[in-house]
């Protein structure tokens, strides 16, 4: 019984670490702009790094037919765009100050971060 309890607590600790504490790698925005694929409930890459103070185009390719994935929201920038299925959609980010900007779908089930750095 003790063993099971320990396993349970370790599992909880793992969940906390995996979903909250661990910071996944960022994809650097290349010279040719980056494509974020929306598929199977995720954005990939989900964390992207872009330079500050420069307007940037990010392209989205939605392959996921669930209705939720259709809307892309970047609340801090008041961006809300409909992503067509299986087609590239370019979204222009204004020149941004350094910081983190979250993007997600309507239900917030698909989530990503734009890291703006110098």
């Amino acid at each position, binding site marked *: 019984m003790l063993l099971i309890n320990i396993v349970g607590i370790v599992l909880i600790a793992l969940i906390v670490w995996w979903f909250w504490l661990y910071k996944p790698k960022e994809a650097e925005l290349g010279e040719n702009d980056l494509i974020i694929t929306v598929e*199977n409930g995720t954005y990939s890459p989900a964390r992207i790094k872009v330079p500050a103070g420069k307007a940037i185009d990010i392209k989205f390719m939605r392959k996921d*037919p669930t209705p939720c994935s259709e809307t892309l929201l970047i609340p801090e920038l008041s961006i*809300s765009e409909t992503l067509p299925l299986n087609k590239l959609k370019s979204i222009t980010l204004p020149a941004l100050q350094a910081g983190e900007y979250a993007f997600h779908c309507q239900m917030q089930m*698909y989530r990503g971060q734009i890291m703006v750095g110098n």
Partner: protein
Amino acid sequence: MSSNTTSGDASCHSNDATTSPHYLHTHDHHHHDAKTANLQELIIEGAGCASCVGKIESALNAVPGVEKAEMNFAMRTVSVAGTAPADALVNAVEKAGYNAKIATAEHEDDALAEKEQADWAYYKRLMRDMTIALSVGVPLMIYGIVGGAMTVNTTGERLAWLAVGLLTFAVMVIAGKHFYIGAWQSFKNHSANMDTLIALGTGTAWLYSMVVVAAPQLVPEMARHVYFEATAMIIGLIDLGLALELKARGRTSEAIKRLIGLQAKTARVIRDDKELDVAIEQVLMDDIVRVRPGEKIPVDGEVIDGHTAIDESMLTGEPMPVEKAEGDAVAAGTINKTGSIRFKATRVGKDTALAQIINMVKRAQNSKPPIGRLADVISAYFVPVIMIIAITSALAWLNFGPDPALAFAIVSATTVLIIACPCALGLATPMSVMVGVGKAAEAGVLIRNGEALQTASKISAMILDKTGTITLGAPKVTDILIASEEDESTVLKLAASLESGSEHPLALAIVETARERGIESSKVANFSAIAGHGVQADVDGKTLLFGNEKLMRERNIDLGEFVEKAQNLAIEAKTPMYFAVNNRLSAIIAVADPIKDDSIAAIKRLQQNGIRVVMLTGDNRATAKAVAAKAGISEFFAEVLPEDKSKKVQELQMEGEVVGMTGDGINDAPALAIANVGFAIGTGTDVAIESADITLMRGSLHGLADAIAVSKATLRNIKQNLFGAFVYNAAGVPFAAGVLYPFFGVLLSPVVAGAAMAFSSLTVVTNANRLRLFKAQEH
């Protein structure tokens, strides 16, 4: 060849808006008949060399009805002028050894149709998955309900359940694959979503059941229960929920669909004396466009000849058609009713008022009011929290639960995972906002964002600017009191002639009245303006004088009893002006800015809804008092300078009011900005769409009451949704974990949780759709 050129409505499509206008110019043939030619564009495949150009062009030129075919090699497109049918063109190119297809422009409604098609395909897939899953799950569940043993004790039972387990696995692979892939993908990304919960829940139930089947000795005898039916049922029910949600969602965007549907696809432009039907995106600024009765206005413009009545209701909510003649503005998307007009395009493409409105409504529909933010924060952390709760619940059952503790632990963990999907919570706000903003747009009320929508529902005081808001903003002649032998039309004729050179708004009112009555003005000589007093001139050999009492006194003109009459007019908020002919008083002409027809009723509506209505004006106190009394407003501020309007807003805010400010947008801008909600009255196309929180497309103040009513209804709807979602999620979790067990000895079945979860989003979307039935109070 031109004899073939009959008029037709076939359109020229292009998928390349940047180059096609140039095509059009190169294709204009200088026929001077004004018949309609068509331009079609083909996309050519397989044309690899420049020499193909000649071959394709000559093949097309040989087709009857083709006036001229010209290929753009770089773009691999051919523009064909003439009346030849599209399939004949495609055939000709194919005969020449290439592939061709007709280019179609990317219209917004095409995109919509494509989306609907994709949604339909996904819907069918979900329904198929649902059928597969439920055809396994339902018989199993019925077997359990009628008392069939769901336990594994004998070898026969083991074999039978092994078969069922494998069948269930097939269901998971065929009908539930997307959940498992999605869960894995998002896990790799360090995120958790709805798929995570479903995959974990159904996976746990299946794995446990398989352990019972494969190695029953590992499990206490009492806990040798299988849950295959739960796995299959949950997958089936959630697929069903998703499918129904997809359907219901389609309806929430109806308003946008309707707006997009207003856009015309083609326009008839006149270039080089020739009428051409072109795709809407090929209309250029300053193009001359012809519109016949019954046709849609394709782009914004200014009428250059003809007159007609135009139905602008789709844009403004104003039911009456509006008369248009030379010099008037027309807006894209409105319908030409009676006459044929030609107009010059002033705004095209994305700049038309309609395109801007569509854009704005779309943006507003996806923005969130502050009330939704808490739900957002909850949603973001929800899934991992639920996973932790599920583990904790399982541990609690194992440690403290009655026998069979293991089975209880598995059931409660599975049920917690399944019931807790926060999707309904995430949908609660956006779905209602989408419908509410769309509903408002249909009534000619443009709400800029979710925040404005929420604040508008709380407005307690509404400040109305007088001129142009309560009143028409255009003075009109209200009274003509004759003091001499001249009759009214002579007076008007002389006065209008005299004033025709003046730019003063009061003068314009007189000139306009004369024009309306068909009175022509005469020639004016020796015109002079007397600053602060009036004007003087000679017309038809008479010396005319027009101005205030001071002017008359200075010229020693006897006013007699008319001084008193003039004062009475002033009390009624009219501006009286004296008119003298050859130094004798001829008439008093009174001009006033009349109150709009429905202002009084609309103000009453606001007051009945408990809103304190305050009038604000730069006019003198007497006029302000008279207008306020007429409009039914007891509170007003007169002689307010434009820069002080915002101070009045602040004063009311200091009193604790949530202040709405309504103005016509230009001199009221600071006050609009400082108010809790700024309402701009936009008249038709000249609307400053971006300037206010809420824009009323029609002049009527009923729009204010409508806007507040819609925002209240939407907020109420959001609250219902949030409550519903909360019941499903937060309140459902403890039940799933088993809080009822110590009291009633019951534990929620995972199947019930699956059904609850499947229908939670559906409930929210359906409730949001109820808003579509909302009607602002009749007026």
